[in-house]
């Protein structure tokens, strides 16, 4: 079985469900970079955030597509991401922020075995 590049915790999944219900929509994620609230996975209504034509789809978490920019993928592809949810205050437009929560990406290096069996990625 191939190795998933991004997965989510049960706690994150339950918040995804809560946000789906509250906003009555399907959701997606985009990994941010840069200053301030950078390095955070951000959750938007499908169609609100315009996915870049070259953005890389890392996989799906709890039914939500997860993307990052190709430039970020370049140096993040060696680490597996687990999307979790924690208490906190963010200043992004991500939908969980008003709940006093934040999605975070926990990284770990792949094992050699996992790295050989990574899920394929479509890149233009």
């Amino acid at each position, binding site marked *: 079985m191939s190795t998933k590049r991004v997965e989510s915790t049960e706690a994150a999944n339950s918040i995804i469900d809560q946000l789906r219900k509250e906003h009555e929509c399907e959701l997606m994620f985009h990994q941010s970079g840069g200053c301030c609230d950078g390095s955070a996975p951000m959750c938007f209504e499908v169609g609100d955030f315009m996915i870049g034509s070259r953005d890389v789809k890392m996989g799906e978490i709890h039914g939500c597509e997860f993307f990052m920019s190709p430039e970020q993928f370049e140096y993040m592809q060696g680490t597996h991401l687990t999307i979790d949810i*924690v208490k906190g205050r963010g200043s992004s437009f991500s939908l969980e922020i008003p709940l006093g929560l934040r999605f975070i990406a926990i990284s770990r290096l792949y094992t050699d075995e996992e790295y050989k069996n990574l899920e394929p990625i479509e890149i233009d």
Partner: protein
Amino acid sequence: MAYTKPEFKAQYENFIGGEWIAPVDGKYFEASSPIDGKVMTKVAQSNKKDIALAVEAGYKGFETWGKTSVTERSRVLNAIADKLEENLEKLALAETWDNGKAIRETINADLPLTIDHFRYFASVIRAESGTVSDLDANTVSQEVHEPLGVVGQIIPWNFPILMAAWKLAPAIAAGNCVVLKPAEQTPISILIMMEVIADVLPAGVINIVNGFGPEAGKPLALHPDLKKIGFTGETTTGKLIMQYASENIIPVTLELGGKSPNVFMESIMDKDDAFFDKAIEGLVLFAFNQGEVCTCPSRALIQESIYEPFMARVLERIKAIKRGNPLDTECMMGAQASNDQYEKILHYIDIGTAEGAELLIGGNKEEVAEYPDGCFIQPTIFKGNNKMRIFQEEIFGPVLSVATFKDIDEAIEIANDTIYGLGAGVWTRDVHEMQKLTRSIEAGRVWANCYHAYPSHASFGGYKKSGIGRETHMMMLNNYRHTKNILTSYDENALGFF
């Protein structure tokens, strides 16, 4: 000496149309200090309705402010600066408690730079002109400036008052009115600034609305009457802001961070003199503002011939950094701005270790006796290579990644191997190296034999993914106004076409 914790009101409203207005839906969120981890007050949790009120109040203010003479606008900006100066200590203390940074910095950097920024824009608008060209004997072309109207600004939490000033001063100097949304992590100090300047500011010129990104930031960026949006923050929200701006076809200014290289050539160690001492400090400046600076010199590139002796001196200097209570005027490093930021930085330290980077110093949280629940982190240095994530991602904390290079060409190659291009530092005694490095590094601001200076009248902004537009210079006035061309013919005769 150590200051005592400042007093805050139990609750803060929005500042709209010159008055303190409760949020329409009556909701508030808690604001806490990263110094003691405790709730300090409550702040308006605004939404679309409050944004609509603020934009409307902005246009009411604009009816007058947009037509106010530059003489009068300049007077108002100077009056704001004077008020801030009279209240410097009070504002510095509020800023320190809201953000966590050391009082030494807010007193000596954040507030003085803020004050100067208003004075700078008060000055330059008095001394500039449009242009007039004689296109032929009877045709005159005039280029005149006109303000845009009401503009939106969404600012970050790392220098809440100063970043507000960077955007507010040019916008209002150019004759616009502003709706500004502070960051959720630091919503308070700007409101205290507004309390201080409210009586010298015409109603509606500056409107402050607090709230969360998806609830208040998004409707601000999407408001159909907004004429421009300025944002400082991270890349995903930056893209969203551009996307929203495309809906109304309005201009954007974006500042989205960096991973700034700080290059040290071997000639810095030719002598053990004052300049070498300055270069050591130049590296240690990664710890300035706890690393929460978009231009943090977070990648030190050191010529390999001097790596060992230079790093030995650097580590000595880092050990001498006074940490602890941010309210103590001796303290050089305060708390990270939020618990989230604190957790994120510690996670990056784990990533660096996992990637095999060599930890040279720090690498842990900092225990501060007075504030056991505060968000303090030790200044940390990793040695590694530029392909590691800690070299490519903006950690926004006191974590430095160090790599060595053989020669100047390799230094340039590593310096430019990043998706960002905001700041860079170059340290050398050789003028030829200086010219080559400063011109070859792709960044909007290159500090040559200095770092972390932010004077007015030196432009600031990014290359590459670091953003669009410039700040801190009079050229920014044109980011906040139209150019109107008036083309006049003094010829009495018809064209003869029809």
